C-alpha cells in the first residue's frame, strides 16, 4: 500500500467502526453515535479526495492571477481542491439535521417505552 492510500484506508476503518456500532449495539443512543461516526468517516473520505500533500489553501489573491486576469496554473497546481470542502460543508449540515431528528426520535421513544434498549422496543412484527 502506498503511503498516500493509508489515510483512505483509515477513513474506511472509521466507517466500519461506525457500522459495527449500528449493527452490534442494542442501545438507541449508541446506534445514533454509530451513525454519527459513519457520517464523519464519509466526510473524512470526501475531504481526503481533495487533499494535496503540502498544498495551500484554495484562496485566490492578486498574486495568483496571470496576465489575462485568470487564475494562474501555478495556483491550480499547488492548491488543494476546494470542491470536496464545499461538499462536506453541505454534508455536515445535513448530518446535523439527521442527528437532531434521531435524538428527537430517541427522546420520544424513551417517553413511550421507558427504555433505550432496542431489543425491548419491538411492537412491530410480521
Amino acid at each position: 500500500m502506498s503511503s498516500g492510500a493509508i489515510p483512505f484506508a483509515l477513513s474506511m476503518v472509521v466507517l466500519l467502526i461506525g457500522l459495527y456500532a449500528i449493527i452490534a449495539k442494542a442501545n438507541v443512543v449508541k446506534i445514533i453515535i454509530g451513525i454519527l461516526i459513519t457520517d464523519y468517516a464519509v466526510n473524512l473520505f470526501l475531504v481526503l479526495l481533495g487533499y494535496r500533500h503540502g498544498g495551500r489553501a484554495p484562496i485566490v489573491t492578486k498574486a495568483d492571477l496571470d496576465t489575462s486576469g485568470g487564475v494562474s496554473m501555478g495556483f491550480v497546481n499547488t492548491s488543494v481542491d476546494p470542491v470536496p470542502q464545499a461538499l462536506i460543508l453541505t454534508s455536515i449540515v445535513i448530518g446535523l439535521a439527521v442527528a437532531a431528528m434521531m435524538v428527537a426520535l430517541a427522546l420520544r421513544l424513551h417517553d413511550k417505552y421507558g427504555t433505550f434498549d432496542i431489543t425491548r422496543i419491538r411492537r412491530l412484527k410480521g
Partner: protein
Amino acid sequence: MTNILPLVVALPLGAGFLSPLLGKSRRGESMAALLALGIGFANLAISVALFTTTEPLVYWIGFWNAPVGISMAVDGLTRLLLLTTSLVALAALVFSIAYMRRFTATGLYYSLLMLMVAGMNGVIVTGDLFNLYVFLEVASISSYGLVAFGTEHEELEASFKYLILGSIGSLFILLGIGILYNLTGQLNMALVADSLAGRGANRAMTLAAAFFLMGFGLKAALVPFHAWLPDAHPSAPAPISAMLSGVLIKASGVYALARIVFNVMGPSAAHADVLTALGALSMVVGVFLAVGQWDFKRLLGYHSISQMGYIVLAIGVAAQVMSPRGSGDEALAGLLLFGGLFHLFNHAAFKSLLFLSSGSLEQQAGTRMLKELGGMRRRMPVTAFCCRIGALSIAGVPPFNGFFSKLVIVVALALAGKWLLAALAVFVAMMTLVSFLKVQRTVLEGETPERLAGVREAPYPMQSGMLILATVCLLGGPLVVWLRGWLLDPAAASLLTRAAGYAALFSPRGGP
C-alpha cells in the same frame, strides 16, 4: 419553457416553509391545506406543460454555466416521473383534507409533505450528482418525520428503523458520488458521463457501482434491503403511505439508480446481473411475505416490495441486453424498459389508490385488520369500488393497467430468452391475485360484523382523492398504445441513449 423548470422545486419548497408561519389556529391550518392543494395543482400543470415540447431542456441555476453551475435537466424519463409524482401528490393532498382532521398540528403535516414533494421533484430534475444527494436527503428527512407523525409507539419505532437504514443508504450514495468525483473531477452528470464513457471498467468504478447499488437499493427497499419498508410505510398516515409507496421509493430509488446506471456510468454486465438478481428476489420474496399478512396496510407494503421487483427486473434485463456482453438489441431493450417504466407508472397509481382506500376503511371502520372487516361493499360503496379497481389492477386482471404492464414485461423477458424469469413473473402475478382475492373476500364481501353496522361512507374529499387514481387505473389499460407514444417511449429512449447520448444531449458545450 425552460424558465418554469425551477418552479417544480421552488413552489413546494416555498410552501413548505410558509405553512408553519400560518399559525396553529384552525384558520391557519386550513390556509396551509389550501396552499398545499394549490401547489399540488400548480405542480401538475407544470409537469403537463413540460410535455408541450419533446426537446431536452436544461436550466442552469443562477445562470452559472458548467462546470461551476448546477443544472436541471429534463428528458423523457424526467417528464414521466414528474407527471407520476404530481398526480399521486395531488390525489394524496385532496384525500388529506378530510383524512387529516383527526390529527393535530396539520399545518406541520402539510409543511413536511411539501418538503418531501420538493425533494422528490429535485431528485427527478437535477442534473448534478451532489445536488441529487442533497434533494434525496430533503425528501428522506421529511419522510422520516411524516412516518412518525402519529407519535404513537409503532410510528416512532418504525420511523427510527427507517431513519437508521435510510441514513446508511444516503451515506453510501455519498461515498459513491465521492469516488465518481475523484475519477472525473466533475459533478455534473453529463460531464461525468462524458469523462467515464471513454474508459473501460476499472476497480474504482466497480466500487462506486457497489455503493450506489447498496444505497439506492436501501432507498428502493429491494430484498435484502427491505426490512424497513413493511414497518415504515404502514405506520405513516394513509396519504403519506400512498406517497411513500407510490412515488418516493421510485423517485429516490429506482429512478436515481436507473439514471446513474444507464446515463452516467453506462450499463455494465455486473450492474445488470446484480439488478436482475435483486429484482427477481424482491419480486418473489415480497409476494411470499404478503400472502400470510392479515394487516391490510402491511400487506400492501409487502406487495410494494414485490411490485418494485418487477420494475427493477425489467430494467436489469434491459441493462443486460445493452451491456457490452449483451446482444445490444435496442428494440428489445426498449420493450423491456417500456414494460418496466409502464409498471412504475401503474404501480404508482394502483398502490397509492389501495393505500388511500385502506386509509378510508381504517378511518371509517376503526380497524385495518382484514379479519375484523367485512361486507364493506354495502356500507362504503365508493371506497369499495376504488379498492376493487386497485386490487384488480395490481393483480394483473385485464383490462386494467397492471395487466398490460405485466404482460409487456413477461413477453419481453421471454423474447430476451429469460424463460425462467418470465415464468417466475407469471407465478408472482398469480400469487398477487390470490392475495388480493383474500382481501376482496374478507373486506368487501361477506357478513358485516355487528360492531361495524353503523359504518358510513368516507367524506367527499377522500372519495375524490381515490377516484382520481381509480380513473388513471381504469384508463391506463385501454389507452396503453397512446400512452406509449407520448409518455413511455420517450422515457425509455432517454435510458437507451446510454452514457454517451446523455452526455451529448446535456453536455454544457452544446448548451447555453
